[in-house]
């Protein structure tokens, strides 16, 4: 997180707000509710309390305007800049302006007013932008379900640095249930949901996020899954890159999605039964394309299936027990990928490296590819 220079904040905890005008995109009561809920996001974790007034000058004046709208920062039409707000101070300080050229909604279409407002009110209270891609104060908009929204831990730390915790919760002791945290690549206990290659990159999935590891550089990027692929679910089960079809397949539950490069392939998700897997397989834990055998390997429970993409059939003699095919990895596999002839299987915080003859070569940490 970051704060403004001098850690400027309000010298009081009771603040007023006034809604000066409305967007025609939403019903008045929906705007009222979205803005009230957005302020409560911050009240819940601090001593700050907000009172609405209907005339005169409030600490936080809220308005909708397009283009040049009365300050030195004109808006830019649809998309681009969605809104802005001013750091705490007298006058324009604390005020939040929303770009009327956007389409604001209560749902996932257009831009969700609650999410945009919760971010802007973070500025109104003294937070600047965060570099954490999972933080509310990250500058780029990404949709998350407002009904399940929970203020990320990065934002809680930032606002409590300025105002302290909510004295009405647990006597002001730090919340024992911290907000959601963005997976930390350098946590030695890191485990993965899924892993795949993608045209020379490695893509490692965890929760709502993924890392992009570039083979030719040690640098690793972390993004929200929905930043690139709004159609994909969080908490992916498995993923693999098919060298037959130049597709990446991603699995969750009994569904499969497909990517062509970084583009979602239309017509997905499909049921995994379309892959020809037995109906007894209701979920895939990990998947990898084996260049040696030119088969897709699916891991489910303590078993492994070898799958021929051309005939769309499971090979004779499968399933087999994982430990008979890849000795040493144990009875389950979280994620799998193949790179330069080596197969990497992930189980919890460890990753095992196998030669193309499937001989175990090394035991490494799961975050081996994440540049720590």
């Amino acid at each position, binding site marked *: 997180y970051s704060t403004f220079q001098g850690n400027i904040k309000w010298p009081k905890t009771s603040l007023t707000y006034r809604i000066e005008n409305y967007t025609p995109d939403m019903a008045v009561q929906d705007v009222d509710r979205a803005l009230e809920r957005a302020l409560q996001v911050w009240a819940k974790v601090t001593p700050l309390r907000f009172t609405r007034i209907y005339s005169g000058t409030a600490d936080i004046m809220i308005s909708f305007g397009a283009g040049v709208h009365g300050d030195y920062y004109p808006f830019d039409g649809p998309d*681009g800049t*969605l*809104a802005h707000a001013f750091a705490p101070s007298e006058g324009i300080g604390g005020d939040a302006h929303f770009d009327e050229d*956007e389409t604001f909604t209560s749902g996932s279409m257009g831009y969700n007013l609650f999410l945009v407002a919760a*971010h802007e009110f973070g500025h109104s209270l003294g937070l600047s932008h965060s570099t954490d891609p999972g933080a509310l104060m990250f*500058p780029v908009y990404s949709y998350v379900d407002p009904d399940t929204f929970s203020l990320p831990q990065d934002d809680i730390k930032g606002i409590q640095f300025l105002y302290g915790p909510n004295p009405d919760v647990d006597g002001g002791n730090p919340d024992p249930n911290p907000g959601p945290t963005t997976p930390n690549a350098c946590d030695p206990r890191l485990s993965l949901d899924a892993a795949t290659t993608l045209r020379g990159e490695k893509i490692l999935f965890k929760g709502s996020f993924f890392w992009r590891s570039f083979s030719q550089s040690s*640098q690793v990027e*972390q993004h929200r899954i929905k930043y690139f692929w709004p159609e994909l679910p969080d908490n992916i089960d498995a993923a693999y890159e098919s060298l037959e079809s130049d597709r990446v397949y991603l699995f969750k539950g009994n569904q499969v999605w497909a990517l062509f490069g970084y583009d979602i392939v239309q017509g997905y998700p499909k049921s995994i039964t379309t892959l020809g897997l037995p109906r007894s397989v209701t979920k895939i834990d990990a998947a990898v394309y084996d260049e040696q055998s030119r088969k897709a390997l699916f891991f489910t429970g303590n078993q492994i299936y070898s799958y021929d993409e051309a005939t769309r059939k499971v090979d004779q003699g499968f399933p087999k027990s994982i430990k008979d095919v890849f000795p040493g990895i144990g009875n389950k596999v979280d994620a799998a990928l193949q790179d330069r002839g080596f197969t990497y299987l992930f189980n919890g915080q460890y990753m095992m490296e196998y030669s193309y003859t499937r001989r175990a070569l090394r035991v490494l940490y799961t975050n081996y590819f994440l540049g720590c």
Partner: protein
Amino acid sequence: SLPIALPSTAKNDEEVAEAYLKRFFNLTTPEGPIQRRRISPMTEKVREMQRFFGLKVTGTLDSDTMQMMNKPRCGVPDVAQ
């Protein structure tokens, strides 16, 4: 040297990037005689923006960087003005 005639997309990217970096990363257009500098202010600011967003730090307007610049976002600058 004469400025090379940038292809339209590259030129457009340059314009988009310059406006973005001025607005959010405090890129300023140097006044007075152009000082000969090892790295242009624009390249420095591209690097700063890539570091902020955890992108590969290349200093160039690669597709990932342009994609990030075109994402809908908050209008408050990312660095202190």
